[in-house]
């Protein structure tokens, strides 16, 4: 990074934080601190829920997924617009009418204190762990760029967010989200444009997509119903619907965002706009990854995108073996460039036979390059058994640093930082509000005044910040972070959603049956995951259906 990049990074982040703090002066009570006084318009709600969901993981992992696995990940978001409609019809009016701070307060009104506490605890466990992953995501950027120790980087990253969240509360989070989303849109657009611009002169945007398509990266839609396939239309529409409904309807980090709306209509409109914008946004982020893939078809790609690990290898006893693999990789990269040029000419000439031949050669080269990469991964493992052997999260970052112009590098790093800070801040805020409103105020200290609980909320934010930073220290074991976050969510969200579905729609079922159904359901979901029964998105459906079915059954048993 040059001085210009550092300047842009520091100015962007500082202006976001100071503006957020400036606009959030005067948090006098819990309502101001946790709900921004329920005073925000729909576009605040929309951008805030988008920024909370789109963490640094989105901008690091998703282009990497596009590069390695193609566009099929976009199907994961197909359930989101449907979930926004259901939320607008049911959850939003209910939460506003009851004037709750957290989603879990409603459960005590409907069932009893036990169900409220259990659901709060499931949320705290899941959100606490996944926030740790969200801290780790930008921390790997710093550690890669500056060669900093990853553990210290986690500590600095999580600590900085902590200071600004504790001081500014929900208003600071919401105002910074708006700036973050504007910067993200600008910078990712520029990154996509620059990627196309860097392609050889004869290769345009459409040609780049054609090359990616022939290599299987334009795999946007899979209509085959296959429960073991991670991403297809059906897992996206059904599993994704349950996951998103649970995430936006029962995860306090999101509920806390749309409860800041000044009316039911403003909260509703914010969510529906999110439903309209999210799928195109995710499509464009993955497209940047696919364009990076096309770029590397015409230029030599690194064998392994995590430079830190390959540098270690170069200075180890395996250096000679690595160098041999590197030479073979360079030869194959040249071969691949020839094949791609052949493919392009064949496509221009509409020569199907030549296209098939070029495609076959590309596939053969691809297999050979994958074998070389597997060899490098083996060496990395031998050299450092604790090393992260997945490089998906490093693909986009490495491309940015190696090929994009100075200034844009700083802006993109600022994007990843600010996006991460936005989602981590919302998570800290939600962990604190649930701990204080649903547990501390409800069970441990019921007679305090508003000032006491405001102070307790700030201390709870500090406590959760420390917990999340500790989790971040172990996050490098999870492979692709975006998948790790979603898998973790799927283990808990289905059960939590099941509790809310029983609360809303199964009026004859009481608290005792729901409480035990949730415990049994959670055990069974974890068991399903451990035996690898199905792709993780379906765990959301399984968890929800299990809680509904078991609660119905137990209600009859308890009644008899």
């Amino acid at each position, binding site marked *: 990074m040059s001085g210009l990049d550092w300047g842009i990074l520091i100015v962007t982040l500082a202006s976001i934080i100071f503006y957020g703090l400036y606009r959030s002066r005067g948090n006098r009570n819990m309502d101001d601190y946790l709900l921004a006084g329920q005073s925000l318009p729909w576009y605040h709600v929309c951008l805030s829920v988008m920024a909370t969901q789109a963490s640094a993981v989105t901008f690091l992992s998703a282009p990497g997924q596009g590069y390695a696995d193609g*566009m099929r990940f*976009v199907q994961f978001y*197909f359930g989101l*617009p*449907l979930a*926004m*409609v259901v939320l*607008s*019809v049911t959850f939003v009016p209910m939460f506003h009418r009851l004037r709750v701070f957290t989603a879990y307060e409603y459960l005590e009104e409907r069932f009893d204190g036990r169900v409220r506490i259990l659901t709060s605890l499931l949320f705290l466990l899941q959100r606490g762990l996944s926030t740790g992953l969200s801290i780790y995501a930008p921390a790997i950027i710093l550690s890669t760029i500056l060669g900093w120790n990853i553990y210290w980087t986690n500590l600095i990253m999580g600590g900085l967010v902590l200071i600004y969240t504790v001081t500014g509360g929900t208003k600071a989070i919401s105002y910074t989200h708006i700036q973050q989303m504007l910067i993200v849109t600008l910078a990712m657009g520029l990154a996509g444009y620059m990627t196309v611009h860097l392609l050889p002169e004869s290769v345009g945007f459409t040609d780049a*997509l*054609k090359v*990616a*398509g*022939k290599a*299987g990266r*334009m*795999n*946007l*839609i899979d209509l085959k119903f296959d429960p073991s396939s991670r991403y297809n*239309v059906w897992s996206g529409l059904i599993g994704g619907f349950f996951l998103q409904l649970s995430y936006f309807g029962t995860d306090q980090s999101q509920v806390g965002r749309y409860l800041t709306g000044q*009316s*039911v*209509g*403003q909260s*509703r*409109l914010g969510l*529906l706009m999110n*439903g*309209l914008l999210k*799928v*195109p946004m995710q*499509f464009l982020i993955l497209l940047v990854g696919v364009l990076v893939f096309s770029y590397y078809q015409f230029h030599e790609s690194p064998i392994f995108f995590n430079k830190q690990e390959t540098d270690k290898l170069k200075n180890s006893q395996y250096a000679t073996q690595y160098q041999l693999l590197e030479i073979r990789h360079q030869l194959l990269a040249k071969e691949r460039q020839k094949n791609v040029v052949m493919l392009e000419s064949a496509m221009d000439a509409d020569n199907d036979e030549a296209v098939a031949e070029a495609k076959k050669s590309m596939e053969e080269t691809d297999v050979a390059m994958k074998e070389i990469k597997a060899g490098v991964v083996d060496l990395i493992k031998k050299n450092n058994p604790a090393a992260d052997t997945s490089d998906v999260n490093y693909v986009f970052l490495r491309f940015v640093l190696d090929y994009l112009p100075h200034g844009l590098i700083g802006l993109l790093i600022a994007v990843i930082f600010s996006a991460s800070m936005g989602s981590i801040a919302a998570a800290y805020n939600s962990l604190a509000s649930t701990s204080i409103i649903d547990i501390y105020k409800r069970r441990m200290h019921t007679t305090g005044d508003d000032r006491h609980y405001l102070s307790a909320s700030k201390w709870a934010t500090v406590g959760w910040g420390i917990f999340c930073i500790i989790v971040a220290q172990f996050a490098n074991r999870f492979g692709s972070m975006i998948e790790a976050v979603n898998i973790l969510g799927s283990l808990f969200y289905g059960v939590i959603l099941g509790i809310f579905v029983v609360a809303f729609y199964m009026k004859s079922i009481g608290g005792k049956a729901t409480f035990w159904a949730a415990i049994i359901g959670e055990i069974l979901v974890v068991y399903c995951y451990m035996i690898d029964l199905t792709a993780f998105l379906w765990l959301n459906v399984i968890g929800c259906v299990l809680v509904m079915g078991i609660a119905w059954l137990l209600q009859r048993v308890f009644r008899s």
Partner: protein
Amino acid sequence: MNGKIPDLPPFVSSWKQLYAIVIGALLVEIVLFYYLMISFS
């Protein structure tokens, strides 16, 4: 209404219409993505 502004969505006359637009947009996106996949593969 006690002098309150009705909580209606902009551009359309009811929330149901806005729900239909959100679902319709999703269907259009799926069809477009399918078309893109076929065109480039």
